[in-house]
């Protein structure tokens, strides 16, 4: 026989609006969490992709007679190859450099026949774990081969990673604020319920109900509401994220790798529902026990 609950909490107005509020907060929190996860995986990707490469540029000099660009290129290759931590080197073929420059300068200008000074490039793959001393390499190349420049992509990459880090931090702060708002909402809803059911709670108190007995009723009620709202919110967040992923896949860019969440990251996002139910339950319980503690 399932008897009617002693405290008819399900009939309170808060039982109707609280799941919606929780759903909305869970949606926000899940989106923020997804953003944090995507940003941190971008950061990792950028770091491992770009810090693994260096580009060395050999500019043409005025005294080609002394040493041709080609010769300097070979000497530079020699030096780089001997540097510890370098995995491979490749001189970018002239043809590809011309192709790169053509859209800006015109096919005719860059064609070799005109003798335009075209710099040469060397792609260097380095072992990112070895923390190669780029400054020292640059110094040595400059000393031994005139007209070299080393670009380690570091400067702008650092800025990009810093930007991503800042966005990540702000998003985390948003997550914390949403959690605080959720706690405050549940506290107010619970206090309202306590006031509505004050008579019955006082009666239970006087006939010898332990505080736990009353708190248990609020506990299960808050768990139900939290789960309802949490599941609805996560459902909406999943739909939103899937929509974003499909829009994103239409944008091709090497800088913005396709957003995709790993199975673990999806689990994290789904776990927001349970976090919401947990926050709601614990908050309600503590609020009730504190209120009951003030009774004589």
């Amino acid at each position, binding site marked *: *026989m399932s*008897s*009617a609950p*002693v405290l*008819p909490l399900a009939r309170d107005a808060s039982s109707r609006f609280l799941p919606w509020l929780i759903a909305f907060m869970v949606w926000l929190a899940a989106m923020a969490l997804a953003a944090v996860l995507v940003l941190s995986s971008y950061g990792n990707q950028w770091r491992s992709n770009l810090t693994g490469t260096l580009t060395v540029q050999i500019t043409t000099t005025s005294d080609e007679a002394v040493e041709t660009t080609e010769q300097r290129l070979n000497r530079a290759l020699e030096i780089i190859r001997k540097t510890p931590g370098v995995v491979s080197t490749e001189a970018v073929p002239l043809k590809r450099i011309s192709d790169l420059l053509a859209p800006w300068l015109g096919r005719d200008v860059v064609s070799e026949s005109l003798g335009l000074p075209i710099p040469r490039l060397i792609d260097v793959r380095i072992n990112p774990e070895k923390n190669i001393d780029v400054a020292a390499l640059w110094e040595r190349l400059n000393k031994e081969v005139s007209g070299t420049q080393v670009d380690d992509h570091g400067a702008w990459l650092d800025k990009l990673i810093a930007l991503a880090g800042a966005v990540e931090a702000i998003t985390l702060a948003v997550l914390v604020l949403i959690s605080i708002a959720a706690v405050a909402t549940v506290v107010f809803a619970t206090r309202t319920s306590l006031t509505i059911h004050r*008579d*019955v709670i*006082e*009666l*239970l*108190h*006087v*006939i*010898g*109900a*332990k505080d736990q*007995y009353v708190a248990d009723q609020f506990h299960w009620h808050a768990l139900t509401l939290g789960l309802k709202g949490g599941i609805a919110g996560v459902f909406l967040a999943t739909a939103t994220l899937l929509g974003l992923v499909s829009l994103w896949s239409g944008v091709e860019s090497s800088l913005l790798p396709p957003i995709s969440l790993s199975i673990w990251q999806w689990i994290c996002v789904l776990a927001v529902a349970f976090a919401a139910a947990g926050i709601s339950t614990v908050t309600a319980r503590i609020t009730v026990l504190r209120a009951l*503690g003030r009774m*004589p």
Partner: protein
Amino acid sequence: MVLGGGDVIRFQNVGVRYGLGPKILHDVSLRLEEGSFHFLTGASGAGKSSLLRLMYLANQPSRGLISLFGHDIATTPKRDLPGLRRQVGVVFQDFRLIDHLTAMENVALPLRVAGASEEQVREHVPELLNWVGLSDQIDARPPTLSGGQKQRVAIARAIIARPKLLLADEPTGNVDDHIAMRLMHLFEELNKIGTTVVVATHNKSLVTGFAHPRLHLANGELEVLKAGTPFSEHEDETDAEDRR
């Protein structure tokens, strides 16, 4: 601290005032021995309900000591109070039935709060409701019951868990004389098996019809009158005033 071994209740110089209002009880000292039966009288507003509220631990006194079943309430840990309260059955002046629960569920409440099994509930509650003449109303909710029926549900709830101390605040105010007598006899039966009883009432014929001592409240002071002490003229006056 354990005070007065055989006493169910002991008050020492107890004073009560609500907030900054006037003193309702001044300097009340009293002892209720185990198995005793007392009436509690006094004009309306004399503080009968206030005194009972102290006894069932719903309020704390502004001053003085209260001990219940030998436990000094001021020094008893809070977690032990529910256990003491469960040994006290209370019939509230305003019944305090829960409107959305059936008569059966209202009466079962003290059992449920104490963690009794479903079998115990289904065995004892209908039996008691039958005894107070409400076997037809087991599934009725309080708003559909008459005043006297509500009162009987409230009494059934107060005694279902076999309390050691029964406090009844105007338990016969809404029932006819026949039922009032029946309820009084029920209280006497409970008293015979050891329950300590206090009945607050305005009903003089009830007080004179039973040979029990009377606690009389006037001007914040408590007087203990032996059974059979006649009502004073002054009391008649104030009572007449109440009856208006």
